[in-house]
C-alpha cells in the first residue's frame, strides 16, 4: 500500500467517523454535512460559490479524468 493510499484511507475513516458523530449527535448539538451545505446556500454569494465548485468538480471528473 502506497503512502498516498494509507493517508486517503485514514482521511476516509476520519470523514466517515465525523459524519456518523454529527448524525448521531443531531443538528442542534453538532453541525452536520447538511448544515454546512445549507450555510453556503443561504445567500446568492454562497450559492454561486457552491455552484462553481460543483460545476468545476463535474467538468474535472467527467471531462478530464478517465
Amino acid at each position: 500500500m502506497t503512502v498516498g493510499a494509507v493517508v486517503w484511507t485514514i482521511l476516509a475513516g476520519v470523514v466517515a467517523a465525523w459524519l456518523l458523530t454529527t448524525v448521531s449527535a443531531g443538528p442542534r448539538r453538532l453541525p452536520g454535512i447538511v448544515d454546512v451545505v445549507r450555510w453556503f446556500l443561504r445567500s446568492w454569494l454562497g450559492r454561486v460559490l457552491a455552484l462553481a465548485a460543483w460545476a468545476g468538480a463535474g467538468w474535472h471528473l467527467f471531462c478530464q479524468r478517465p
Partner: protein
Amino acid sequence: MDPMSERLHPPARRRNITGAVAATLGGAVLAVWEGAQRRQTAAAHWSVAAVVVLAVMVAVAAGHRRQRQRSAAWLAAAGRGVRSVAGPEGWRDRPAYVAGVVTWVLVIAAVVGWDLNSFAHQAHDLPTLSYIVGKVTRHWWGRSAVFAGWLGVGTYVAVGWRRPVMPSADGDEP
C-alpha cells in the same frame, strides 16, 4: 376548490410532485446515457456543460426573491462566526457546536490540503482524489452512478434551501 376546477387547475403540490418525478426520471436516463460516454468526447463535454448551464438557469429562476440572506449580511455573519470561534465567547456559550465547526474546517482543510499536495507532487505513490474517483468512473456503471450523485447535489445546490415565502423584499437581492 370544486372538483371540476381542481381537474382543470391541479394544485401546486401535485404539480411539484409530478415535476420532481419527471426530473428524477430524466436525470436517471441522462445518468445512464452519460455512463456510456468517454471523457474526451464532444458528447461528454456538451452534456456536462449543458447541465451546468441548466443548473444556473434553474438557480436564478427558482431563487428570485427567495434567498434567506443578503450576501453582505452572509459575509458579515461569517466574519462574526470566525471571531466567535477565535474568541472565548463562542466556546463559553456553545462549546460543542463551536468545536463541531472547528472540526469541519480541519477535516475539509485536511482533505483539500492532501489533495493539493498529491497534485503538486504528481507521483504514482500520491494519487489525487480525482484519480481515485477516476478508477470508478472509467466503468460505465461507475460513471453513471457518480454522475447521478453529481446531478443530485447540483439540483440541491440550485433549488434547495430557499425561503418558502416568496413575496417579500426583505433579505433579498436582485
